[in-house]
């Protein structure tokens, strides 16, 4: 029982990180209908901003940790908006595959520029939050896990509020529903798309810092695997659907943790994809997505 709870906790914190990344994928897909492959590298840049800021701050304080998080989020928001403005905007309306290839190019560019700037060797991430471990009835709860879950929960609630209770959020949903009609009623689509990229990149940055806290070594290619899985999570929940992304990420985090703890642990990476394939075959719109029939 204790072991089960322990795995549940581990799965929850892993799923929370996946959720933060998956939300960015799903929001961008919602407004632009394309897979932003560079998103996983924005996640990596977030972790590195956290690394450099965290090194300069006294470690192990709550305020310091929050400052690091805020710095990473602000930095990545700017990066995300710049990427969209410079690279994706000129291609908007073009063939999907070209946009996809550009996104892949952008992803490679960030990874290899990262190797030049940050160095290719993995680095230890500073413990920016107080590192404490509490034991309750044999259940080991690390402070980092609690922080991951708390921060992710707060950010998701904030996102929910932004998307459903603010003017810009309404505009976002309008653009996702129908970009042309949104423009007709006076929404500045460019601003909304920039905002979406900024928001998604902020969440990815937070995810990057939290991931680095729990798996304390970072390198320029660290984003590839979590990014891919977060995208799987977004599709699992129904791509373009914000609560779906969070749900899919939690499920994926749980399943992966439980598989990791079983004797099939070496198949962990494959099982995430196997679930995805199963879902897509039997419910292509994802768990919470609605299936739209194709019209001529």
């Amino acid at each position, binding site marked *: 029982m204790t072991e089960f709870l322990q795995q549940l906790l581990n799965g929850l914190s892993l799923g929370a990180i996946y959720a933060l990344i998956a939300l960015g994928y799903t929001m961008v897909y919602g407004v632009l209908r394309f897979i932003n492959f560079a998103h996983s590298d924005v996640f990596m840049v977030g972790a590195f901003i956290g690394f450099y800021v965290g090194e300069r701050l006294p470690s192990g304080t709550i305020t310091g940790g929050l400052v690091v998080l805020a710095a990473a989020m602000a930095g990545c928001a700017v990066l995300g908006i710049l990427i969209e403005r410079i690279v994706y905007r000129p291609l908007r309306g073009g063939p999907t595959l070209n946009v996809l290839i550009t996104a892949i190019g952008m992803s490679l560019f960030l990874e290899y520029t990262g190797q030049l700037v940050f160095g290719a060797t993995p680095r230890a991430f500073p413990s920016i939050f107080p590192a404490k471990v509490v034991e309750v009835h044999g259940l080991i709860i690390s402070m980092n896990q609690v922080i991951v879950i708390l921060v992710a929960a707060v950010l998701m609630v904030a996102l929910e509020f932004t998307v459903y209770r603010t003017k810009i959020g309404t505009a976002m949903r309008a653009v996702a529903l129908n970009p042309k009609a949104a423009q007709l009623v006076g929404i500045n689509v460019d601003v909304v798309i920039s905002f979406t990229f900024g928001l998604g990149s902020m969440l990815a940055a937070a995810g990057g810092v939290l991931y680095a806290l729990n798996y304390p070594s970072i390198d320029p290619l660290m984003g590839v695997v979590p990014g891919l899985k977060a995208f799987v999570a977004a599709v699992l929940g129904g791509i373009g659907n914000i609560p779906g992304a969070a749900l899919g990420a939690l499920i994926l985090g749980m399943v992966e943790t439980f598989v990791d703890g079983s004797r099939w642990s*070496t198949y962990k990476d*494959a099982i995430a994809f196997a679930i995805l*394939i199963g879902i897509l075959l039997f419910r292509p719109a994802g768990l919470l997505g609605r299936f739209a029939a194709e019209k001529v």
Partner: protein
Amino acid sequence: MPKPLIALIAAVLLAIGVSHFSDHIDPYYLDVITGVGINVILAVSLNLVNGYTGQFSLGHAGFMSVGAYLSAAVTLLLGPKLLGDSGGSDLAQGLVFLGALIAGGLGAALAGLAVGIPSLRLKGDYLALVTLGFGEIIRVVFQNVESLGGALGLNGIPNYTTVFWVYSFAALTVFTVVCLVRSTYGRGFLATRDDEIASESVGLNTTRYKIVAFVVGAFFAGVAGGLYGHFKLTITPTGFDFTKSIEIVVMVILGGMGNTPGVILAAILLTVLPEVLRAVDQYRMVLYSLLLIVLMLVRPKGLFNFDYAAIASRLVRRLRRARG
């Protein structure tokens, strides 16, 4: 004799010729030439799926790995039994290698069928994702099969790949894809790409076209994998990951989807380019990715997407006129 067949035979003869002089070619250049040929097979075969049939597959490296492992298993396990202690004559070795390549190709084709039947109901991004998923699953399975070397990979694969083998199969790939697409039957691939609903409504079985494209593409990817294994002499599961699939997709898109000469040129360029950029090794991948972005922004229909037939006929006309 039909023109494509003449071209095929000419290409194979040329491959034999070049192979004959391969001892006089610098080994480094020989490596690059071999790499180019393998990438041509991969890109042209993927072009059948992504370019001509319009199905976005991101799992080509997975099929390549099936072929690489299967053909390496044949030459490593069956080879010594068939060839005996002496290692056999050149001809016997060649036959074993041919058998291994075909076995690898058929294995990959079977994998393509197994992947294609369930996943080709999906479209666009979702199909890309499922093929990517299958590619990753294949990789993880190979990582876990201890008899195939597990995560360390297979070592000591005999050095059978020569310029002759690579370019003969490259020529065969181009021949098959071009003839298939130009045939009456093959028009269905283009129709499926251009408008699936319209094709279905005139009675084309689009699912079958997609599966045929997938299986044929996977077959040649498997052959390319076999050639790759017997060229690098060691294969690891991580060598066939997502990045490799992306590399092949980029060749297809840069060349112009559904434009075989363009895709061949792109495969050559994208294999040679990293070698040329090796001088500035540190910045190689940064430049490569920047180039990719800039190309997509400046020439979104692909770098080499010209009307080659028109260019060729214009050249011929000009030559004729010049002759009088």
